[in-house]
């Protein structure tokens, strides 16, 4: 038996359940059990997706979204890691910022759009900053925890062997927090995608969120589903990409996570 078929034997449910769902949907729509006007067949959606790709519509909407995610994620990551590390290291800073974060964090990010629009130039910048808000909090929280969960005995041993000041930070505290930081980045990237689509629905002409909403409003339901598929695929690629990066950069944390 080959390795591949061995994998399939072990994971056949993972492959079978979405396949059954799609085939069932296809049949239900074909037989009129589902109204095709609202639930078009998967094969039809696929055809529309091909057309959106071929005529350049998808690219015209996907590129602005990717650009916004990239900027927002970079902003959230840099600030989130900086704040998180500082809060992990200094108890007083943590104690003064914790209540503020606790109040602001659960507010749905989209609600920051009007506020942000007053503070920064309208348009792109406001979209990017709004997209970054929730990701920033997630990354800051996990980074803080990452610093705090480092075994104090390991820190004591490192000090004993001469790691002080900057050296203690770069050789012990930062690498010790990295697995948590990566978890924060992965969550933050996922939320950036969620929020950017929401923000684009409200306030953008171009973007996957805008395409989704426009398709719905003019009842191009097939295009709406096609956009769904693209957004879902984008989320999966980003998430697994970051997981693969983590596996490459943190080989020492990988086996622990898998166990």
């Amino acid at each position, binding site marked *: 038996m080959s390795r591949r078929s061995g994998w399939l034997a072990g994971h056949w449910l993972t492959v079978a359940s979405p396949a059954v769902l799609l085939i069932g949907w296809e049949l239900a729509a074909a037989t009129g059990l589902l109204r095709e006007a609202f639930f078009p067949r998967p094969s039809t959606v696929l055809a529309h997706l091909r057309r959106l790709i071929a005529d350049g519509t998808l690219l015209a909407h996907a590129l602005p979204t990717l650009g916004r995610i990239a900027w927002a994620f970079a902003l959230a990551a840099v600030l989130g890691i900086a704040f998180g590390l500082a809060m992990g290291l200094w108890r007083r800073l943590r104690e003064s910022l914790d209540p503020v974060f606790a109040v602001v964090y659960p507010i749905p990010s989209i609600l920051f759009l009007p506020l942000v629009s007053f503070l920064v130039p309208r348009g792109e910048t406001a979209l990017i900053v709004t997209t970054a808000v929730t990701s920033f909090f997630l990354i800051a929280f996990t980074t803080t925890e990452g610093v705090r969960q480092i075994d104090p005995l390991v820190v004591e041993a490192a000090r004993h*062997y001469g790691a002080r000041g900057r050296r203690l930070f770069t*050789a012990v505290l930062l690498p*010790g927090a990295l697995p948590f930081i990566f978890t924060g980045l992965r969550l933050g990237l996922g939320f950036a995608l969620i929020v950017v689509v929401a923000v684009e629905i409200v306030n953008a002409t171009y973007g996957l969120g805008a395409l989704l909403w426009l398709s719905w409003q003019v009842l191009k339901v097939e295009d709406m589903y096609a956009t769904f598929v693209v957004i879902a695929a984008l989320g999966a690629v980003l998430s697994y990409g970051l997981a693969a990066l983590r596996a490459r950069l943190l080989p*020492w944390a990988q*086996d622990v996570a898998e166990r």
Partner: protein
Amino acid sequence: MKVEVDDVTVAFESHGRSVVALDRISLRVVAGEFVCLVGPSGSGKSTLLRVVAGLLRQTSGAVRIQAERPGTPATAMVFQEHALLPWRTVLANVAFGLENRGVARAQREARAREMLALVGLTRFARHYPHQLSGGMKQRVGIARALANDPEVLLMDEPFAALDAQTRTIMQEELLRIWATLGKTVIYVTHSLEEALLLGDRVVLMTARPGRVSQVFPVELGRPRGLEIRASQAYGVLLEKIWSQLREEVVRAMGDDRGA
């Protein structure tokens, strides 16, 4: 005299009460000697070791360590839970102290490899700590301490967490390494059998406050192996120290229950 501990007292506040962990302890260790500290829980064995290591500051009294080779640290500690840096390979863990002191890469890695050979881990230089067994981790801990070529090697119940067979192997290994390098060792343990197998002298400590109760020379010859357990002198000495230790343990348990 290699190590002189003079009238050292360690007191700290706990729940608003002043607790005396060490009460005017004095101890002398000659160069090349292997001294074992034994006593009930709460007798301050580990506290004394941490004061000698400079990890904890005494309230009063003085610790002097005679330095013969300038540039090398006075002490290096082998921690109970190994306390290796999980994100560093075995080689980088062993070289950590030298790296912190600014020793060039080629030089520190050569030294680390030498120490890994000494503890029998040459093949595992590129492994991460989580890929090693408990006994192997503690070998790395010993190699890390020895790589610094300290004046005094401090060991805080290094084999307490290992299973009985591994512990026995590690004790024999430690005796071999000690005979090779001729280091001065201060070794904390719960186990009288271990202390008699390893030590030149056994220092019996009392609990609450921690004091030196009695010092027993171990005149069982060298080199020593597990076969000494069959000798009459061993049995007599074990019985003699145990009758003392027993009193201390019972008294410490009474303190825990009462008061």
